[in-house]
């Protein structure tokens, strides 16, 4: 089990307690999110005839494409106890560049690799500031959040560029034949498998958990902490820029303000998926379930004409619960241990 390997390698305080009853293994937050996702889907399919048809699912999934892609890279960062708040701005910069260059007559086949490289460079800047100058990533990427969005506005101003080639637009909106899965989501699925293997079944993944749990210990264990973090930021920028290309083509409109605020949706999904913001804990499966849960729940609420305000309240509550619950469970476990110091791990239910 890849997940177990990762957990065994990571010096994780709660999971290091190896004597856990099988049932409590399922009482983990990420599993709970998965269960909730299944419930929402089943409830939606039973209650709303508009929900579980191919057209709606294809749309709801497609609408999540960019968030899901960026969430993969964000999960790796958060596991290593870093964060990249500039992703939506990199997406916007990428969109602005696509629009500007397309309008200037460049070939789309040239534009796409170019903006992806620009995105990687944006990530490199974040990474260098964090690793070489030792600055906190929260502060650095709040700064570059403003910087990259500003650059996007310099590039495109308040123009909106449209009329991208139909063959490329189709790639971002059409479904894989015979399924309600748009191509960007299919790409996400492939990348998700690769990321899951990298995170949960390789030395690279174990290194991330080790860095996130105890950075000094990881350093002394010979893990090249700075290099790995730098790579993560570059990947994050690269993926965000690619998501910007998808976003631009999917909406058929390049604007400097594209994707404003998207970073919060990504972080919300990672948080909901049970990844600990202190680093060192979390599963990619949980994040994927988190992305899908937020997206499908919102879609279901919209189909039932629930107002935007209530939609925000529901997702907000879900997030707060996702932060509180694991903490409450941890506190409850702690309390149980206190009265019987002789038995450090009492049999749990």
């Amino acid at each position, binding site marked *: 089990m890849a997940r177990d390997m990762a957990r065994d390698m990571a010096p994780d305080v709660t999971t290091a307690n190896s004597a856990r009853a099988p049932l409590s293994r399922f009482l983990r937050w990420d599993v709970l999110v998965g269960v909730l996702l299944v419930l929402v889907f089943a409830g939606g399919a039973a209650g709303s005839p508009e929900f579980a048809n191919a057209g709606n699912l294809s749309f709801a999934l497609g609408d999540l494409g960019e968030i899901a892609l960026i969430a993969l890279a964000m999960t790796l960062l958060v596991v290593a106890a870093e964060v990249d708040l500039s992703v939506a701005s990199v997406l916007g910069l990428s969109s602005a560049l696509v629009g500007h260059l*397309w309008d200037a007559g460049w070939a789309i086949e040239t534009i796409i690799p170019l903006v992806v490289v620009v995105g990687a460079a944006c990530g490199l800047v974040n990474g260098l500031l964090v690793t070489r100058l030792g600055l906190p990533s929260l502060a650095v990427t709040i700064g570059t959040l403003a910087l990259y969005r500003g650059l996007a506005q310099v590039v495109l101003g308040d123009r*909106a560029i449209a009329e991208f080639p139909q063959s490329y637009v189709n790639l971002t909106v059409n479904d894989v034949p015979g399924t309600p899965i748009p191509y960007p989501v299919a790409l996400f699925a492939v990348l998700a498998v690769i990321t899951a293997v990298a995170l949960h079944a390789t030395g690279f993944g174990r290194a991330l958990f080790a860095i996130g749990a105890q950075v000094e210990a990881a350093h002394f264990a010979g893990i090249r902490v700075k290099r790995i973090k730098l790579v993560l930021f570059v990947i994050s920028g690269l993926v965000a820029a690619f998501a910007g290309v998808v976003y631009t083509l999917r909406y058929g*409109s390049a604007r400097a303000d594209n994707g404003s605020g998207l970073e919060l949706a990504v972080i919300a999904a990672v948080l909901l998926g049970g990844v600990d913001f202190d680093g060192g804990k979390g599963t990619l499966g949980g994040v994927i379930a988190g992305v899908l849960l937020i997206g499908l729940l919102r879609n279901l609420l919209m189909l039932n004409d629930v107002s935007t305000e209530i939609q925000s309240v529901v997702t907000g509550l879900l997030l707060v619960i996702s932060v509180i619950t694991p903490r409450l469970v941890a506190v409850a476990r702690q309390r149980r241990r206190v009265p019987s110091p002789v038995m450090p791990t009492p049999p749990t239910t």
Partner: protein
Amino acid sequence: MFTSSRRFTSAVAMVGLVSLGLSGCGGTTKESASSQAPAAPAQTAAATANPNAPIKEGLQIAFLPKQINNPYLTILDKAGIDAAAEYKGTAKEVGPSDASASSQVSYINTLIQQQQDAILISANDANAVCGPLNQARSKGIKVVSYDSDASKDCRDLFINQASSEDVGRSEVKMLADMIDHKGEIAVLSATANATNQNTWIEFMKDELTKPEYKDMKLVKVAYGDDDDQKSFQETQGLLQAYPNLKGIIAPTTVGIAAAARYVSGSKYKGKIVVTGLGTPNQMREFVKNGTVEKFALWNPKDLGYLASYAAASLVSGRITGAEGEKFTAGKLGEFTVGKDGEVILGPPFTFDASNVDDFDF
């Protein structure tokens, strides 16, 4: 896994450069793409209008404003929803809480799934909503844009608040009536390159060449950049530079409020006529204290009402959206579909002390 981050990043750069080189010759550019056939409009040309068809009962239509809780659009949508009750249909307002370019798209999908008869949209981005709107049209849903148009290839009708010509000419007429067609006048505009304002000012100048305005003279077009402070100072500057000034037209809601505020607190109050385009909430106190006698904008209630009836007429087959078709919109009377599926509400609506309290936006 990655022994050197430098090696990794330079690999990324290489991939980029190689693909740049590969794609350097040939590829899909704006020019080559525009020579391809454009996306076929969803509309079938076979549809013909039957002007005598009754409005169907039980229609379901939905208003999708730029964002919910925008007071102006709320008035508009509510009037449209009330109009739907007149023709025994049901209407609702749904929409995003932020006015970003793409936020309307998921609502369009929802309305498609709900199989509404018509979608009325005030578009945040004329192009970003285009694909989903055409998807709706291909499923037989009629699309009417109002307030802010979507690209004309992806809607059946656009309900325009007022034509530029009407706005420009009526501003001059309104001011002329208040200053007995005599004296020096000035315009306080938004920015020097604002498309709307410049078009209106051109029509104002053209109107002023008519003989009835021979005693009126436009001495200056000032630009307040739609900034309250700058507009305030520009008003001050105008009044000092032109002591014989009789009136100011500010065809921008920011400009008219700033000009009225300056005049209201100065010795010019009662001597200078301020008019232009403003909203009742901004202008109420200046109308009440006598600084401003009247100003104009369109009536958002009428706009929503007209949009609602236009959508119902489309769904019922009374019109198809072709130029020259006529339809009646309840109490507002008859309207004609113009070029590119545009329906114009009419001349701007004048607000004065008698009606300014009837509006809240």
